[in-house]
């Protein structure tokens, strides 16, 4: 029990650090960086344990997003996308069931349910997250083309990172 909490706290800090210290700088430095935001941080919400209640996950998403917003100096943009992602998580999990049922003691991670399952689960979640993020960032649907372009570009980069993260850290 304590183990998962401390593990999640470490992950929380690590992901924010990675995001603002590395990925943000890369996006900023590159000319076409605005279309290819590398966003690894949603993985934090993706692999929270099943045991946490819906409300806990939504609140965690909010806190996580606000902390990110502090670093990005864009109050509310990441937070709203994270809250949205946390909110749709149970629904997506229900839609994409693996062979058999979920084990309440596990996390929805690659080590428990396999690569194919995790690839589809994280694809749906990441697309939803990125689309919501860029929509809130633009704050209007007038530039829907831009929003979709950014979503797609960033998805390619971020998806790769999320899968890579799973293979490297392989959380239980």
């Amino acid at each position: 029990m304590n183990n998962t909490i401390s593990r999640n706290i470490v992950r929380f800090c690590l992901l924010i650090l990675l995001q603002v210290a590395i990925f943000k700088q890369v996006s900023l430095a590159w000319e076409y960086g605005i279309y290819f935001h590398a966003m690894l941080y949603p993985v934090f919400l993706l692999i929270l344990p099943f045991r946490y209640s819906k409300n806990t996950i939504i609140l965690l998403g909010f806190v996580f997003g606000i902390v990110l917003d502090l670093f990005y100096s864009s109050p509310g943009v990441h937070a709203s996308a994270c809250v949205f992602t946390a909110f749709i998580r149970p629904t997506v999990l229900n839609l994409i069931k693996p062979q058999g049922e979920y084990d309440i003691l596990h996390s929805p991670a690659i080590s428990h349910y396999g690569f194919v399952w995790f690839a589809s689960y994280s694809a749906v979640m990441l697309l939803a997250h990125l689309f919501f993020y860029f929509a809130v960032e633009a704050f209007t649907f007038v530039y829907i083309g831009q929003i979709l372009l950014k979503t797609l570009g960033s998805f390619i980069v971020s998806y790769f990172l999320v899968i890579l993260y799973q293979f490297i850290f392989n959380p239980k």
Partner: protein
Amino acid sequence: MRNLILLFVKYGNIFLFIFLELICLGLVAKYNAAQNEIFINSANIFSGNVYGGVNNFKQYFQLSTISDSLAYENARLRKLLYNTEVNELARRDSLVNQDSALQYSYITSKVINNSINLNNNKITLNKGSNAGISHRMGVVDANGVVGIVKEVNKNFAIVLSILHRNVRISAAVKNKGYFGSMHWTSNDPTVLDLTDISRHANIAIGDTIVTSGYSTKFPPNITIGIIDTFWLDQGDDSYAVEVKLNNDISNLKYVYVIDNLLSQEQKEIEEANKNE
């Protein structure tokens, strides 16, 4: 009550989601400059349309008064038109530069929202940048000064009424030349304060106060009101003057936004010589 609690238990996460999302979007709209602008513009379009609808409805009940005021206005304009024709004719064979003949142009507009009972009153007009209205233009009606344009979008404009604490209007005593600054400090929507009139000035109750024309927003000699009372506080070197407004801000229908075609020119030369 029990059902209500059950409802919250069952759909708690949806309420939490909506609640947090609203906080987030509030933060986004409040603290991010670009999004804030989009929010304000959309809100203005929305509120402008609502006020426009309300106003359309209200107008049915005011048609007779409006037609009266329009007839009166027509008469006044016809008179003006006649006078300008005479002026133009007189100028035709003189060598006055025709470019400077027309300094002020007027844009008529309808008032669709107004208030008088707040500390900072604002007025919404049904025309905006499409009609040529822009930031910091003066607004008058047939009887006097109304305010200064604060913000415009395509089809609406927000005017800071003269009943707004931050609005100051440069004013003068008609035919006597003393000038000062008008400012609303009371809570009475018919009375404005005039400050900075020197204690040596020879003013009297009933004197007419007009715009001075020193600012670029209003042409000179537009009537503002008449002196109601004035007094000299101990140790002050200027009079405190209360001016009764000539127009009725609580009953505005049609106003004219003043486009000073030479304001840019005037500001440029003033700015260039600011430090002399």
